[in-house]
């Protein structure tokens, strides 16, 4: 399990990549990835391409990121979900809050 992040597109987009199980153990790393970054960042991307599993505390972390990114005005994309991850996001109806690709 690991969280990597980097800023793209001329400093406007933060990409956070979560490998392996995305659960409470990733809590601190995930927060660190977006807290205290440059104010220029307006777009957020969570890359779950290498995420094998996602639990409800991960959903909570995504909500925290959304809140950090501006709540209802937030621009947060969740990309590359596998079927299992996608299903968990779907039953919680997270499409309503995030752009899921």
């Amino acid at each position: 399990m690991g969280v990597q992040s980097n800023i793209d597109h001329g400093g406007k987009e933060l990409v956070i990549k979560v490998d392996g199980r995305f659960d409470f153990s990733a809590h601190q790393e995930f927060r660190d990835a977006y807290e205290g970054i440059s104010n220029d960042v307006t777009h957020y991307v969570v890359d779950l391409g290498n995420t094998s599993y996602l639990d409800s505390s991960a959903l909570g972390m995504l909500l925290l990121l959304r809140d950090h990114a501006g709540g209802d005005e937030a621009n947060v994309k969740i990309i590359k979900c596998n079927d299992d991850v996608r299903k968990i996001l779907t039953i919680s109806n997270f499409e309503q809050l995030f752009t899921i690709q």
Partner: protein
Amino acid sequence: MKILIADDNASDRLLLCKIIGKQGHEVVEAENGKQAIDCYVKDTPDIILMDVLMPELDGKEAAKEIKRLAGEDLVPIIFLTSLVDAQSLADCLKAGGDDFLTKPYNNIILKAKIDAFVRMRNMHATLQKQRDTIAENNQHMLHEQHVAKAVFDNVAHSGCLDAPNIKYMLSPLAVFNGDVLLAARKPSGGMHVFLGDFTGHGLPAAIGAMPMAEIFYGMTAKGFALRDILREINLKLKSILPIGFFCCAAVVDLSFTKRSISIWMGGVPDCYLLTNQGQTLKPLRSHHLPLGVLSGEQFDDEMTDHHMDLDDRLFMWSDGIVEARDANGDMYGEERLQQVFKQGLKAESLFNAIQDSVSEFVGQSQRDDDTTLIEMKMVDEAELELCFPSVQQGVIAGPSDWKMEYELGVDSLKHFNPLPLLMHIMMEVPALRSMGGQLFTVVSELFSNAFEHGILRLDSSLKSSPTGFAEYYQLRQQRLDALTESFIRFNMTHTSENGRSGIFRLTVEDSGQGFDYPIKFHQDESQVKNKFSGRGIPLIYSLCHSLEYQGSGNKVVAEIHWP
């Protein structure tokens, strides 16, 4: 430090006493193993220096006994020996010795060893103290958890989970796992069932569960509709839980008379509806965000309806079942769950079969008890009568037999909207609360008919064109300004049979001229439509048990029956 020196050799003892005394320690002497044990008990030394070969009882035997007596206390024993072979030294350590010192003594080494053991003793004492503190705190926390659980049980178990149509499985300390299971009978018949799963464990989950259970039971007992209860719970959780904490839930309104359920699901795994004598299995999927995520305006309370015949069953669970792990860390998964349903078992054995299947899968591996499961069966309401919770009588008792008359004069009609007041009075009756929307429509339509058509004599057909619409409201204002000597009189009565059923009668009379109306209504819609276009009467009629115009048409009586 107090140091015991056990040596049968007087000159050796004298020398050691001198060396150790010079290092600032207190010395106790023993001449053999037996004396050493006695001194240990009597003087409780901190460190023991012990000769291996002694008369009466040798050093190794004495060391074993002293270590046994010491139990968890650390009493370092340093063997004094002129033995040099490895086996003899190893035997000393095996007997419970912590170190050895070879003769002839070197006072520098002796000092270093004693200092090292003093440090070790201090560290051990600190560890023991911390361990005791932790154990005490843990004891304290467990006690608090049990008290908290008792408080929660008083709130949560005021419901009807033990009703004959429900089977459920819930860990005794589930509230600290974040799982909540609530069930309550509605005053108007039927049942509300709530399965919730908070994110996180421990206190944050338990804290959210308390107000949630309060709201659920309180509002159900007062007759509120499940949608309103959900909105209230969502709002409460949204306001008290930090962002990122929420409650996944499956919530059901069971109607035994209509043989149907309405279900709301947010963030929970598929529920299974088993119908057609156990032949048809239909998964119901979550379509909402969990409770406590969205604001009141964004919250979606839409529920889906499903028909259920007698003996049809609805199964709901928290994700603890699907995510239960075996010794290899593999998850139970939805496929295994579906498999249980495909075995062709009788409907009544399915609940136990699911339980067995999960516990067999989990085996002896760290069972985390985070598995909540409930089965609800469609039955005749009569089967539940016996278990109606008597403790709730105090809560649900509202006014049941009452009447009131309320008349508005001209001035009031011009400036005052009576609807909130009238609604408030009706909502005091528990059974009427669940029909709040329906009652509001009836009262507001009849009031506006009496006011706009009866008193102000406005023609609603004007409103059908955009220009007419403006004209209508212009005319309305003119006539309102010119209004003198008018009234509208509301008469409301409510009667109830043992709190099981009741009749609400609303009469609205105005001082206008009335209109031409048929003697009796029929459910023949075309007739109703033609005769009363513009008065919203078909709508009102569809919401009432009966609707009757009297006098010149300036008086209307609407009757609403419950359940």
